C-alpha cells in the first residue's frame, strides 16, 4: 500500500474563493492510503515546497497528489520538489482544481464537490504509479530555420553567433521576406532595404549559416534534439557556383510578361529573374511556367549569352536530408485576398490598391520607380484616401477577427511620407480606432496629424464608387460629426488585414505543431512561453505566431534563438519515460503495434520466455524508449493487452474512471 500525501493549494484566492480547501483536505484523509493531507496558500512557493519536503520525510510518503493549477503550469515544479526529497518524480500527480474547477464554477458547494472528485481520481492513479527513470538522448547541434524574412534571418544570426550551425530554408529565390518589399519603416523613417540588406549579407557570409533559397521543407520526422528533415531544392536551372550575377540573362530573356511577384504583380518580369537588386543569393532562377525554352524547347537565349555557362535547363529538383536538434518556424505573413470586398472596388479600379502595393509604388525599385502615380493613367494623385481595418476585426466570414496590429502605424507612415514629398496632395484617413501602443508610436501618429496635416476621420467607408471621369467617390461617414461624407479621391489605399503565410498549415502538420483557427501557430503558453511551440524542439519567430511589427519580430526572433541555443547547448536531453512497454507473457508477436507506431519505435525479437513453467522461444515486441514518444496508439491496438503505456497504464486510467464514477 502506497503512503500518499495530498497537498491542496489555495492559489491565494484563485482556488480558495470557490473551493472549500479544508473540505478537500478532510475528504482526502478519508481516502485509502492517504496518510497526510494539508492545505497552504501557495503550494508552489518556496515555503510551500518546504512543507511538502517535510511531509515526505515525516510521513515517509511513497506517492503524492497536489491539488492545484494545471499540470501544464506546475507539474514540473512539484515533481522536481519530490525528486529533491528522495521521491521518484513520477509518483506525483496533479489534480487540476483551478483551470478545470475553481475558475469555471461559481457555486462553492458544486466546485468543492468536483475538486474532491478530481482529488480522488488523482489519488487512485497514484496508487498505481510506478517510479520511472528518464532516459537520455543525444542532441544534434544544428538548427533549422524555416523562412528567410527578417524573423528567420535574425534568429539564424543569433544562433550562429553563439557558435551553432544553422540552415535557413526559404521558398523564394532570395531571402529578405516582406521587409525587403517595404520602402520605409516606422516609427523612424529608416529605409527598409538600408537596414535589412546588411543583415542579409551578414547571414549569407556567416560561417555557421547555410542558406537554401528556392527550397521547401518536404518532410519532418524525429523529435526534439533529433529531427530528420527532407528539403526540396527546387530546380533553379542556374548553376549557383558558376553564376556571377551579372544580370545579362535577365536583360536578354525574351519572355518578359510574367507578373512580378516582388512588386505585387503591379508590373512584369522576365522568365529568368532575381526578385530584386539586393537579392541574396544574387543568382537568378528560371520560372519554368514562363520560360520558352523549358516550355517549347526553342529559345535558349540566356544560355547563349551567359559567359560562364551557368544555365542548365536539365536541372531537376533535388531532395537533401539533414539532421537538426531544433526547428524554428518563421514563415511570416501575406495580406488577405480582397475578392470578397467588392464594395471597395479593388480589382475593379487600378487606383484602389493595398498598402503593400503602395510600398512598392513608393519604392525607387518599384513599378513607378518611386513616383507616386495612379496606375490607371500615370497621373499624380491629388487626393488620397486611406481606409483602415479592411478585413481586420471582422466577425463575419469575409475577414479576420483579430487586429492586424501594423496598419495604423504604416498608414501614418504612408500619409506622412506622401505629405512630405508631395505637399499638394491631400491625405484623408478613415479609421475606426487609431492604435498606437509602442515606443514613440503615438508621437509618430500625432506628427502625421499635427505637422503634416493628415486628415483623420473617425468612421468606416461603405463603398468606393469609380466615376466616369476616372476619379473615385468614397462613401464614408464621420461619426464625430454624425455626417455622411462623400469624398472624391484619385487614389484609395486599403489597410488590408494580414494572415499567416498559406504554407504554414502544411508546415505545422509536418512539425505536429498546433495552430489556431486563424492559422497562427500556437505558443506553449500565451504569456510565459511565447516563442516555444507546445511541440518540444519547435520554436516560433515572427508573424507566424501572431501579428507583429519589425521591432517586435526582431525581439521575438532573438528570444527564439536563445531558446534554441539553450537546447543545443545540452549534450543530452532527458527523454520522456512515459513510454510503451510490452508484457512478454501476453505478447503474441502479431506486429499490429508496429503498424500503428508513428515513430518506428517498435521492433521484434525472439526471446526465451518462461510462461508459467513452459519455456519457449517467442516473438516479442520491443519498444525503443528513445524513439517512443508515448502516444499510446499501440496500447489500444494490441489485441492481447500486452502493450501498456507507463505513466498512463490501463489500470491507472481505469482507476481514474472508477474514482470519477464512484
Amino acid at each position: 500500500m502506497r503512503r500518499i500525501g495530498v497537498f491542496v493549494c489555495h492559489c491565494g484566492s484563485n482556488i480558495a474563493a470557490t473551493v472549500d480547501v479544508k473540505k478537500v483536505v478532510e475528504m482526502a484523509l478519508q481516502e485509502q492510503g492517504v496518510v497526510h493531507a494539508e492545505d497552504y496558500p501557495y503550494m508552489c512557493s518556496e515555503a510551500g515546497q518546504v512543507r511538502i519536503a517535510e511531509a515526505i520525510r515525516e510521513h515517509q510518503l511513497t506517492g503524492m497528489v497536489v491539488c492545484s493549477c494545471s499540470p501544464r503550469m506546475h507539474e514540473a515544479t512539484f515533481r522536481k520538489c519530490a525528486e529533491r526529497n528522495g521521491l521518484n518524480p513520477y509518483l506525483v500527480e496533479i489534480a487540476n482544481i483551478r483551470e478545470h474547477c475553481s475558475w469555471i464554477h461559481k457555486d462553492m458547494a458544486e466546485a468543492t464537490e468536483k475538486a474532491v472528485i478530481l482529488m480522488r481520481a488523482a489519488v487512485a492513479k497514484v496508487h498505481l504509479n510506478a517510479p520511472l527513470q528518464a532516459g537520455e538522448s543525444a542532441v544534434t547541434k544544428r538548427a533549422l530555420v524555416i523562412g528567410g524574412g527578417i524573423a528567420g534571418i535574425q534568429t539564424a544570426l543569433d544562433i550562429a553567433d553563439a557558435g551553432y550551425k544553422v540552415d535557413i530554408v526559404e521558398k523564394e529565390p532570395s531571402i529578405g521576406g516582406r521587409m525587403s518589399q517595404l520602402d520605409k519603416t516606422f516609427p523612424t523613417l529608416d529605409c527598409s532595404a538600408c537596414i535589412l540588406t546588411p543583415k542579409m549579407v551578414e547571414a549569407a557570409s556567416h560561417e555557421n549559416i547555410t542558406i537554401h533559397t528556392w527550397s521547401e521543407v518536404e518532410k519532418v520526422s524525429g523529435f526534439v534534439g533529433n529531427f530528420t528533415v527532407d528539403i526540396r531544392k527546387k530546380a533553379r536551372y542556374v548553376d549557383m557556383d558558376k553564376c556571377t550575377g551579372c544580370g545579362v540573362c535577365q536583360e536578354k530573356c525574351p519572355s518578359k510578361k510574367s507578373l512580378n511577384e516582388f512588386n505585387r504583380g503591379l508590373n512584369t518580369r522576365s522568365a529568368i529573374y532575381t526578385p530584386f537588386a539586393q537579392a541574396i543569393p544574387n543568382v537568378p532562377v528560371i520560372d519554368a511556367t514562363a520560360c520558352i525554352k523549358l516550355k517549347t524547347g526553342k529559345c535558349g537565349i540566356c544560355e547563349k549569352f551567359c559567359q560562364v555557362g551557368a544555365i542548365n535547363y536539365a536541372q531537376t529538383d533535388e531532395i537533401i536530408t539533414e539532421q537538426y536538434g531544433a526547428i524554428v518556424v518563421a514563415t511570416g505573413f501575406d495580406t488577405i485576398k480582397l475578392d470578397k470586398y467588392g464594395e471597395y472596388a479593388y480589382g475593379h479600379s487600378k487606383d484602389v490598391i493595398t498598402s503593400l502595393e503602395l510600398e512598392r509604388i513608393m519604392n525607387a525599385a518599384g513599378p513607378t520607380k518611386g513616383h507616386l502615380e495612379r496606375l490607371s493613367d500615370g497621373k499624380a494623385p491629388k487626393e488620397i484616401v486611406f481606409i483602415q481595418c479592411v478585413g481586420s476585426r471582422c466577425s463575419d466570414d469575409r475577414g479576420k477577427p483579430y487586429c492586424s496590429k501594423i496598419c495604423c502605424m504604416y498608414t501614418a507612415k504612408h500619409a506622412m511620407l506622401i505629405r512630405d514629398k508631395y505637399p499638394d496632395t491631400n491625405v484623408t484617413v478613415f479609421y475606426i480606432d487609431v492604435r498606437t501602443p509602442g515606443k514613440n508610436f503615438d508621437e509618430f501618429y500625432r506628427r502625421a496629424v499635427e505637422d503634416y496635416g493628415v486628415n483623420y476621420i473617425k468612421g468606416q467607408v461603405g463603398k468606393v464608387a469609380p466615376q466616369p471621369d476616372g476619379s473615385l467617390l468614397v462613401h464614408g461617414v464621420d461619426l464625430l460629426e454624425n455626417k455622411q461624407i462623400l469624398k472624391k479621391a484619385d487614389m484609395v489605399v486599403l489597410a488590408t488585414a494580414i494572415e499567416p503565410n498559406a504554407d504554414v498549415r502544411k508546415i505545422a502538420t509536418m512539425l505536429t505543431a498546433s495552430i489556431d483557427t486563424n492559422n497562427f501557430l500556437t505558443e506553449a503558453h500565451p504569456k510565459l512561453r511565447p516563442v516555444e511551440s507546445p511541440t518540444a524542439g519547435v520554436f516560433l519567430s515572427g508573424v507566424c505566431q501572431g501579428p507583429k511589427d519589425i521591432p517586435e519580430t526582431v525581439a521575438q526572433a532573438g528570444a527564439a534563438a536563445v531558446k534554441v541555443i539553450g537546447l543545443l547547448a545540452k549534450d543530452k536531453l532527458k527523454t520522456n519515460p512515459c513510454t510503451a512497454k510490452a508484457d512478454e507473457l501476453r505478447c503474441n508477436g502479431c506486429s499490429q503495434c508496429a503498424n500503428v507506431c508513428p515513430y518506428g519505435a517498435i521492433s521484434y525479437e525472439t526471446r526465451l520466455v518462461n510462461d508459467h513453467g513452459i519455456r519457449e522461444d517467442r516473438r516479442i515486441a520491443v519498444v525503443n524508449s528513445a524513439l517512443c514518444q508515448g502516444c499510446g496508439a499501440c496500447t489500444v491496438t494490441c489485441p492481447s493487452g500486452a502493450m501498456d503505456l507507463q505513466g498512463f497504464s490501463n489500470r491507472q486510467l481505469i482507476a481514474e474512471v472508477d474514482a470519477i464514477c464512484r
Partner: protein
Amino acid sequence: MNKVEEIKTISGVNPLKCMKCGKCSASCPSFNEMDIKPHQFVTYVINDDVEALANSKSAWKCLSCFACIERCPRDVKPGKVIDAARQILIRQRGQEGLSADEIPALLDEETPQQLLMSAFRKYRR
C-alpha cells in the same frame, strides 16, 4: 417582455457585437433622412432607450435594402434593429405609417401592385 427584450427577440440582433465602425451609416441610402443614424440604433438598444428609437423618423425611412446588413463587419445587422422598432410601432393600433384613406391619391397609372403590397407590409400591420 420589456421593449428592449422585444427588440432583441424580433431582430435577433446582439447589439454588443457592434464595434462602432460606422460602416452601416456610411452605406445607408437613407442616412440624411434619418434623425437617429444606423450606427446609433444599437446604442439606443444598449442604453434601453427603445422609446426614442420607436419615436424616431428612422423607423419609416429605412428602405430594407440590406446594405448595412451585408457590409457590417461584426455581423450585427443594424437594419434588423430598426425594422424591429417599426414592427413594435405597427403592432400598436394607430401607430401605422400609412392610412388607407391616403392611398388612392398616391397611386398613378403605372404603380405596380408590388409597390402597394410592400408599402402595406412596411407601413401597416
